[in-house]
């Protein structure tokens, strides 16, 4: 039987209700999705069933995971953060500027670290050979960007507004427009890959991927804010999105910074 949006809607509602019940029973806020979130079907065979083994990082400053790989000026080129300048011509679409800060759980900026992004073009198509959606490819848009955060933890990208796209998990499944982000912190434990969304997207309630974050406030943290001060006159619309990396870091190294 064909899986419909109504089937997925029911599952999303049930997962949300189950989270509300856990909260009412005194369970902590869940900032992260559960890996076994079944409305996103690809998770079903790809999540561990055994609980993770916990490592208390405060007991051992020598852990490899408390340091992070380094990236520098050699690893990015000057125009990597401008996705509209990577080809001979201009990509089609609404130009946008996306900027914000990368922070740790103490609100401190993550400096000089690598931020990578990738996205669909303005028609909702990725420049990836396995992508079968028959929206047009844009010869002037690859949809890949990189940058290093500055001394205040800021990153900044110029790109085009990505389009929403269908993805066949169920009948009439559509992903809300989003930009994928990959981030490093000061510790490998802070590694994060996530997706940034745009304000007021009507597809949010139907999408099991954004809904995998069942906590309403946590889900809102995936949505950028329109920021007129970031809009560039005669050029681009501005969006602000701050990112807070989860995961412990080595506090004893950072003292005095």
């Amino acid at each position, binding site marked *: 039987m064909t899986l419909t949006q109504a089937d997925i809607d029911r599952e999303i509602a049930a997962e949300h209700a189950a989270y509300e019940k856990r909260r009412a029973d005194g369970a902590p806020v869940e900032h992260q999705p559960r890996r076994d979130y079944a409305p996103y079907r690809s998770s079903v065979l*790809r999540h561990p069933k055994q609980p993770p083994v916990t*490592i208390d990082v405060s007991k051992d400053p020598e*852990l490899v995971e408390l340091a992070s790989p*380094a990236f520098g000026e050699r690893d990015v080129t000057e*125009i990597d953060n401008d996705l509209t300048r990577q080809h001979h011509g201009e990509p089609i679409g609404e130009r946008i500027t996306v900027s914000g800060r990368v922070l740790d759980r103490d609100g*401190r900026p993550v400096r000089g670290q690598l931020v990578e992004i990738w996205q669909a073009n303005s028609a909702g198509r990725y420049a*990836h050979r396995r992508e079968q959606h028959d929206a047009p490819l844009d010869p002037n848009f690859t949809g890949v960007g990189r940058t290093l955060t500055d001394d205040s933890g800021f990153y900044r990208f110029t790109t085009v507004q990505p389009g929403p796209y269908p993805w066949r998990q169920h009948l009439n499944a559509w992903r809300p427009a989003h930009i994928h982000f990959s981030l490093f912190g000061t510790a490998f434990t802070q590694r994060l890959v996530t997706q940034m969304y745009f304000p007021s997207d009507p597809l949010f309630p139907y999408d099991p991927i954004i809904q995998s974050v069942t906590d309403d406030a946590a889900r809102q943290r995936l949505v950028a804010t329109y920021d007129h001060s970031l809009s560039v006159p005669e050029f681009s619309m501005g969006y602000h999105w701050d990112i807070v990396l989860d995961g412990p870091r080595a506090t004893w190294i950072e003292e005095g910074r």
Partner: protein
Amino acid sequence: MTKIDTSRPQTVLPTPSHTVGPFYGHALPFPGGGDIAPLGHPDAITLQGYVYDGEGAPLPDAFLELWGADPEGELAQADGSMRRDPASGGFLGRNGVEFTGWGRVQTDADGHWSARTLRPGARGRNAPYVSVCVFARGLLVHLFTRIYLPGDEAALAADPLLRQVDPARRDTLIATRDRSGAYRFDIRLQGEGETVFLEFQ
């Protein structure tokens, strides 16, 4: 909501993770991503394996990041893992001399991955290991595990994590050496022989 107020700890809350999805292949992998060992280095080792799902099917759409110490147990601070060519915008690759300690390798159509790095040295009370972060379509939050190398049974027996792990699952964290001398480390995301995954607090 997405301008974080850093004046109070209650408002600095983590950004949730999401899956990498199926279409990261033109963005994240880079040439030489698994060639972490400097060229001709006497302590170079080869790591390889498969990534499997809960039905034992290999994953053609996963990637791993490896992060490890050098043979003296020192953590690299060198950048240059994905050196770029400012002229073409392409990748120059690593310079073959410096050790950055970090690499990124994707599974191929058979679900197989491989990398060459330096044999890690021990740090503190820990037996030598390479930290691994697993990403895949379908995986809503990445997974951490570790590759320990076989051989030094005393060091493995004293390792704080390996002592903590259920003895029946301990071997999922220890690579095996095959006839070619390469170390084999398979990752099973679910089910029989499920790899031990880690959470840091």
